[in-house]
């Protein structure tokens, strides 16, 4: 039956190829190229700002930058980025497979929980990990009572930073892997099984290569996130680039020195991008079949169920339960001591508003870029898509300052208004949307769209009725990611937000910076809750895959 359908469609496409009208230029420009170039113009602001400030750097700045430990900082940063990416992929692939393809008990629950650690801000997560697992933290106190353990091994430095960043950013990869698995045509795997390969071999040689685009784009996000993160590395006292940049701002208020360092970060980003391109390989060749995702039987785990459950619980426990538990403890203790918690209604509203708008803006901006890079291959569209990643590794404060530089000179009425903040969020989070949509789009075969066009549908109709539904898992993954990360964004909100614009993230930071832990616990828990609900909703409403 399927073979007959394939034959019909192939015939239709071949017959109508000469009839197929290439998209009129105006349609292309209006829907894709125009918006893409607009987006690209905004994306160029941070690098241009950095170049401008770097040029102003004086000789003392260069002297201190090119001296001592800059090479060491580069090495340490690279170490962290690579480590976090590798371990994240190692965690995300099994978790993704378990929550999509296996008959794990309470699969939906695990699907939601394993994707949630992204809601925990890194400065909160790191603080809590130290509070719990530090040399004299809560776990040590508990162990001291039981076993007389005086001091736990030091968690600071690379191990701590690696732990925190991996636990909090593996969902980037996980969400992409899940979306890829959901859209994957099982025909290849079924063929491989009937031809004699066991489940492991099938996974290794058939499934995993098909996951490469998802792993590449997720891994890219994770590595760039590890470059940009400041909260975790500062608490774990691991001197990466971001920490050095902040110290430049903090100690010498030196914008040119910080800008020069940020340019090095951009250079590192470019090298990671090049690497990812190699990794991505011949992704567009990966789906020769006309495949459609079909519901398929879940793999039976049998006794493997118990190790699988243990693995899921361990990850979720460390990444989600531990931070939430400590926060609840602080909250209860604070309430008992009678600490004032303050109203968080306004902060919650603002957080939801800003994050919602940012999600919309990012998706609107990602679609043209992703479609162009997949469907209109060429140097320009490729460059535009890569451009979106350029600023992803930059600390939020740098992007904010770049927008101040341009905003206060050329867009004064918009300065310090909500639209400008949304623009900052857009620049900061665009790659998440682009990567997710692109990975999904790669799994939609071109012929489906061409067939629809050949059968008479107009381009917009094709976009709406064929393409968009097929990339829906990618879009929802991207939307969920952007919403989460926008909820916990801090430096750009502080610097660029409208005056008096409090969000849950700023409330947490404000309280933690003055050691008011109970007062930090309430907004932190609200933040986690408010970020989790949309995520849970999106995951629970995924297309049903069970037979």
């Amino acid at each position, binding site marked *: 039956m399927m073979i007959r359908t394939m034959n019909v469609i192939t015939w239709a496409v071949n017959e109508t190829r000469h009839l197929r009208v290439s998209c009129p230029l105006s349609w292309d420009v209006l829907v894709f190229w125009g918006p893409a170039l607009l987006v690209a113009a905004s994306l160029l602001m941070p690098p241009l700002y950095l170049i401008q400030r770097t040029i102003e750097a004086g000789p003392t700045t260069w002297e201190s930058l090119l001296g001592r430990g800059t090479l060491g900082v580069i090495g340490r940063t690279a170490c962290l980025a690579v480590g976090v990416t590798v371990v994240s992929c190692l965690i995300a692939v099994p978790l993704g497979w378990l929550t999509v393809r296996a008959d794990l008990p309470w699969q939906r629950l695990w699907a939601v929980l394993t994707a949630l650690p992204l809601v925990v801000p890194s400065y909160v997560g790191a603080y809590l990990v130290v509070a719990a697992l530090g040399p004299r933290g809560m776990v040590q106190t508990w162990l001291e009572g039981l076993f007389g353990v005086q001091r736990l091994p030091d968690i600071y430095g690379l191990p701590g930073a690696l732990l925190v960043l991996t636990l909090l950013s593996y969902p980037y990869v996980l969400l992409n892997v899940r979306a890829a698995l959901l859209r994957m045509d099982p025909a290849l795997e079924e063929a491989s099984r009937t031809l004699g390969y066991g489940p492991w071999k099938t996974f290794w040689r058939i499934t995993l290569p098909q996951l490469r685009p998802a792993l590449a784009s997720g891994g890219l996000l994770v590595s760039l996130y590890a470059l940009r993160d400041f909260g975790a590395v500062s608490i774990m006292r691991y001197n990466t680039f971001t920490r050095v940049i902040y110290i430049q701002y903090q100690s010498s208020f030196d914008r040119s020195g910080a800008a020069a360092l940020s340019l090095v970060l951009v250079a590192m980003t470019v090298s990671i991008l090049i690497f990812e391109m190699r990794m991505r390989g011949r992704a567009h060749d990966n789906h020769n079949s006309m495949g459609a995702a079909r519901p398929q039987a879940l793999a039976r785990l049998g006794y493997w169920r118990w190790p699988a459950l243990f693995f899921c619980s361990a990850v979720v426990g460390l990444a989600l339960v531990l931070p939430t538990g400590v926060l609840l403890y602080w909250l209860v203790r604070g309430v008992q001591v009678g600490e004032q918690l303050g109203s968080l209604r306004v902060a919650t509203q603002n957080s939801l508003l800003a994050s919602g708008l940012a999600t919309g803006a990012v998706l609107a901006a990602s679609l043209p870029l992703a479609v162009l890079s997949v469907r209109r291959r060429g140097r320009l569209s490729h460059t535009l898509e890569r451009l979106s990643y350029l600023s992803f590794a930059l600390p939020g404060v740098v992007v904010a300052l770049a927008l101040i530089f341009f905003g206060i000179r050329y867009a004064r009425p918009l300065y*310090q208004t909500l639209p400008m903040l949304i623009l900052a969020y857009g620049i900061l989070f665009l790659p998440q949307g682009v990567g997710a949509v692109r990975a999904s789009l790669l799994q939609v075969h071109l012929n489906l769209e061409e067939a629809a066009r050949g059968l008479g549908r107009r381009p917009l109709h094709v976009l709406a009725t064929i393409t968009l539904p097929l990339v829906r898992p990618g879009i929802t993954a991207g939307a969920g990611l952007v919403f989460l990360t926008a909820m916990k964004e801090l430096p750009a909100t502080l610097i660029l937000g409208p005056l008096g614009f409090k969000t849950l993230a700023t409330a947490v930071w404000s*309280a933690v910076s003055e*050691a008011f832990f109970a007062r930090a616990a309430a907004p932190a828990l609200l933040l986690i809750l408010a970020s989790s609900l949309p995520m849970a909703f999106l995951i629970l409403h995924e297309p049903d895959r069970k037979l």
Partner: protein
Amino acid sequence: MLIALLPACGGPAVDPESSQGASTGATSETLTIYSGRSEELVGPIIEQFREATGVDVEVRYGTTSEMAVTLLEEGDKSPADIFFAQDPGGLGAVSELMVPLPEDILERVDPRFRDPQRRWVGISGRARVIVYNNQRLTPNDLPDDLWAFTDPQWKGRVGWAPTNASFQTMVTAMRVTWGEQKTRQWLEGVLANEPIAYEKNTPIVAAVAAGEVDVGFVNHYYLYRLLQEEGESFPARNYFLPDGGPGSLVMVAGAGVLASSDNQETAHRFLRFMLSPVAQQYFATQTFEYPLVDGVRTPSDLPPLSALNPVQVDLADLADLEGTLRLLRDVGTLP
């Protein structure tokens, strides 16, 4: 595009407390403050100013350095009227953008707590102290001055925060009073004792109480915050070095008015309010800082400012950080 449609979506929700003042007051004056001091610390007193005068005050909270670089980036187009900073370093970085203040404001505080170029005035003070774990140490175990911490008996027992502005200000005071050479020797001596470096002061106090380290170099008021939250059984206490020296430095948080401000009169009103007995009493009793204006009582368990024996250093010297940073990087405490 979507962004162009956003202004139509309606503005963001603004804290209702900030718009109350405008409706009760007779004036429609506004004031924009960039504050490096957190909302927890200064929010209540700014609120009192709002209610007392009816001025519509908008505050941007952040770290002193973030606000300082923001002001530098905005330049003369900045919408801010006042910069309220945690330390003189931040004020010094922005001082070219600030205007000299009227004499009556400057005269309310001691000359050592204001800018010699009259561009900013100190509002509250804090002292450097040693925080120690009182379950493991008594005041008798602690030395009389800072130099003693280069002794090997303190190996592995010290916590400090080299990236923190107050620490760097203290090192600057060392360079002024002890000289460059002795300061370098002190830094190298303490480094040889393998101190644990923390990001800020609060983690040091928490670490001392947890027993991760025995002593730490911090500002005096963090302890009180933690005592309030954790109770009297919290095993950390402040120790004021009896011999004085840079280890007893008193630093100020201060504010200045920006040249780009259109509301300089209102800004001056705000500064006068901050230096009034009401506000100074607030700082003394609510944030546990030192009031800088005569006639306001400090909390009973804090040694009075006069008894502190702080080193006599011109605050203008402390505002210059370049040399300190170079030294810290040279010695290896800063990356």
